[in-house]
């Protein structure tokens, strides 16, 4: 493919790691500006902090508020440099494994405090 429509091909698409495991959605795309002032595709942003602002109105506020309360907000969205993208088709595939990326705090928190404490969670 020699060109991409950012909104169509990237935004809201599923991101999977090199083994096909879910990483998140492309909640927002970051464009960098180089020395000459020309914009380029810099990174994919994942997380409710990136997603919330795209939804205007009460639904967006609800979502952002919920995310804040659910302590997913502390270190900002997950930023995946575009260099790590291997391929874009029905999903955005990364060239790395999920473990190398920062895990969303909500996932770790729920595992530690709820799911991981229920017998049989590792089976």
């Amino acid at each position, binding site marked *: 493919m020699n060109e991409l429509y950012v909104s169509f091909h990237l*935004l*809201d*698409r*599923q*991101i999977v790691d090199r083994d*096909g*495991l*879910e*990483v*998140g*959605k492309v909640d927002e795309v970051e464009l960098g500006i180089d020395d000459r002032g020309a914009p380029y595709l810099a990174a994919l942003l*994942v997380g*409710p902090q990136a*997603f919330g602002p*795209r*939804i*205007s109105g009460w*639904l967006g506020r609800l*979502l952002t508020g919920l995310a804040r309360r659910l302590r997913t907000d502390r270190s900002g969205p997950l930023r995946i440099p575009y260099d790590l993208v291997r391929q874009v*088709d*029905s*999903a955005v595939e990364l060239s790395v494994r999920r473990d190398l990326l920062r895990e*969303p705090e*909500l*996932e*770790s928190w*729920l*595992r530690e405090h*709820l*799911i*991981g404490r*229920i017998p*049989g*969670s*590792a*089976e």
Partner: protein
Amino acid sequence: MKKFLAFTLGILTAIGGFVDIGDLVASSLSGARFGLALAWVLVLGVIGICAYAEMAGRVVAITKRPVFDLVRERLGPRVALVNLVASYLVTLLTLAAELGGVALAIELVTSVSYLLWVPVVGFVLWVALWRVKFETLERIFGLLGLVLVVFVVALFRLPGHGPDLWHQALSPVPTPGENWNTYWYFAVSLFASALTPYEVFFFSSGGVEENWGPRQLPEMRVNVFIGFPLGGGLALALMAVSAEVFHPLDAQVTSLGQVALPAALALGRLGLAVAILGFFAATFGAAMETGLSAAYVVAQFFGWPWGKRLQPRRAARFHTVLLVSVLLGIVALMTTIDPIQLTEYMLVFSAVVLPLTYLPILVVANDRGYLGDHVNGRLANAVGVIFLVVIVAAAAAAIPLMIVTGAGG
């Protein structure tokens, strides 16, 4: 054996669409009130769900993207979020109703009030969804639900009015004493129930759980073209026995116990016991389907790791949504809301959001960039477009009909 069991995902999915707690009663009730004059809606529903489940299954086999993934991608975040909220609520309240249905089935063999069974059923459901493998659940409840075939047997054992039934089926108009508004209200809710959105959520996610690829396309089609017609056939049998037993007496069916009565009349205690076992399996199967679907849609909207193929600790957010949904379902029922009424209202509301789920499936099934040579053929597109129009019409008519008829009064 593997080949023989290859269609259980389709069966289990179809159970949620055709013989869950709401449908068990709704099919019998429409048989009692209209004879077989609404049988065509079931036929139409089977064709529609087959067409769309096949598309959704094909998309999953080729791209591994389940339906709610496509919903957000094609409709954009805002519309998809509205669809998410609506679909989640419909699915959650249906889950609550199914828990009630399982409890009602148990009440029929214990005469202990269903409300006391609800927490027990909820707990057992959650344990099953936590511990048992997806394929195992699918096989047990898909196959066990098939014992509802007892109503087909009952139909042949009942003193025959076969010609009457044919006559009713071939004259699709309100029977004497009924009016067109009520007729169409029943038609819309039977149709919406045949195409409830959680069926495609569950079926497509089930395809991912079972790791379908292009080589499983034939298996997927077997699931669709055996599973859904079987489910629809069971609903038709329920409608027919009720048309035979209750319709001539001008009596309506409002409780699960009455739904089983024709089986007892035709086949005695054994028939009754099998019918109740079938109710149990079908409602429990539908509870699994709706419980998982509630968690699937949320996880797929946000892109979280999901599914029973992962260890629960590797999908903590998914399993949290699942746990919370089951708890909310239990709480909803403990308000003593009538589970049967609940599903019927949910059907009407789900009719309203149906187009937001089915449009993206149709669009993606035509996307060569995704499916290559597996895009829709002419037939699939013709059926898809016709049904999209019908779905939109049903969506538009659902609430006005509910209001003018006082919900089928």
